[in-house]
């Protein structure tokens, strides 16, 4: 791939200029869905944009040397890593893309959660540390299921290359894997019922308690980009391609938004589980499903 195309992909589509407004729109859809579930009207369309610009204009507290540097580094790295993940998502496999594979994409999707944990420990706030520990244990338990599902999809398709994985292969293994990944998304996005790491009634804002100003704005943006990247990942693995770019893009966008609506509805309809219950939920599902997954990966081999 030529360098100009690569830069265009990073900056224009699906990079910065496309991804940032799309992330705001996804945050809006999440908040609006929760509002409608509570029979409210909800925020205006531009609300995530207002929040972002307002936070950019607020002052940030100063910390000492390395702590200050690290606290600024984590949100910036999260946004950068998620933009790179978005550039990898195979929406139009026939048109080429970055020649990354599934392992790279999974790594990029996992890093923001690690930065989020590190932010809590770096801030040295007691609430931040508790939030980070909760995030760590939840991430460990949900990733078992997530990675088994991804492994099964890759093994049943005999490839780790994203462009080949995205070509429709409506096998039972694929659908089972996609369902398991969807089950992990609430934990990865810290949504109800798995929102223990940012439970504001118990530990203020968890790892982000000490953040303010532009760094907090970047965390908000990173959350929107996480929505975009994870829903895009799931949809790109599962939707059937028509071959026409516009139709494909339309179907892709529609399915992504539908996934956000479904997950936000679940978040609005459920209460927060305690950390031991959420961990138990994932371990129980993981053990049962891991056996099914590995068996079906062998059975449904192409």
């Amino acid at each position: 791939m030529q360098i100009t195309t690569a830069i265009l992909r990073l900056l224009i589509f699906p990079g910065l200029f496309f991804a940032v407004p799309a992330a705001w729109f996804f945050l809006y859809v999440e908040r609006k869905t929760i509002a409608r579930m509570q029979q409210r009207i909800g925020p205006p369309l531009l609300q995530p944009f207002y929040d972002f610009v307002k936070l950019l204009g607020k002052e940030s507290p100063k910390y000492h040397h390395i702590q200050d540097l690290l606290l600024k580094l984590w949100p910036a790295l999260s946004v950068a890593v998620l933009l790179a993940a978005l550039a990898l998502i195979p929406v139009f496999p026939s048109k080429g893309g970055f020649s990354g594979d599934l392992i790279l994409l999974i790594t990029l999707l996992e890093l923001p959660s690690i930065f989020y944990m590190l932010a809590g420990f770096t801030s040295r706030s007691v609430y931040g540390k508790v939030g980070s520990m909760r995030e760590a244990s939840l991430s460990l338990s949900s990733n078992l299921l997530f990675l088994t599902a991804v492994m099964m999809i890759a093994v049943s398709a005999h490839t780790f290359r994203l462009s080949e994985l995205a070509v429709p292969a409506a096998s039972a293994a694929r659908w089972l894997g996609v369902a398991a990944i969807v089950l992990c998304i609430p934990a990865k996005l810290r949504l109800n019922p798995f929102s223990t790491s940012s439970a504001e009634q118990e530990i203020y804002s968890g790892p982000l308690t000490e953040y303010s100003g532009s760094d907090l704005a970047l965390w908000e943006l990173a959350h929107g980009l996480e929505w975009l990247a994870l829903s895009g990942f799931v949809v790109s693995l599962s939707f059937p391609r028509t071959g026409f770019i516009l139709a494909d893009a339309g179907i892709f966008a529609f399915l992504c938004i539908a996934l956000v609506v479904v997950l936000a509805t679940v978040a609005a309809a459920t209460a927060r589980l305690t950390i031991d219950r959420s961990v138990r939920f994932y371990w129980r599902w993981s053990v049962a499903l891991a056996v099914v997954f590995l068996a079906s990966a062998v059975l449904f081999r192409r």
Partner: protein
Amino acid sequence: MKLLENLLNHCRTKSPWLFHMNSGSCNGCDIELVASIAPRYDVEQLGIHLEGSPRHADILCITGPVTYNTLNAVKTVYGQVPHPKAVVALGSCAASCNAFAGSPTVVGPLHRHIPVDVYVPGCPPRPDAIIEGIAKAAELLGRTERKPLTDDDLKDLEPCAGLCEAERAEGDAPCK
């Protein structure tokens, strides 16, 4: 530059995040504040959002007459809210100490210790009044002339706990 500044100010009025603090209130105002951010009044339409950390907040909502024990906490939390910020004094207690005026453990009202922007009187105020007060504070946030307060500005406001003790020794009610 002018355009960017106008945009920033507009966004500030559109996205006021609250931090709620109780400075020795009887809980009446706290219940009303919680009622006003519940789904029935839908303050998210105005962009209002209750935050868990004072570092995220724009508007500090303080209830209660400021007791001796909470005074330092009130000042600390006021300092933790990043600029630009506004303070809403919720209820009659925060405005005038109300029924607690003259109590030896009350060092209020609030404006003696931190600058207050909006008063919402009432015992307790209705949710409609609280939302109106917050909306007015949000308008104040969008004004360009607001500058961070310096230590000199705060000096006049701060008859510290020691001074109140002196007043009490003279037999004066700390709250006039």
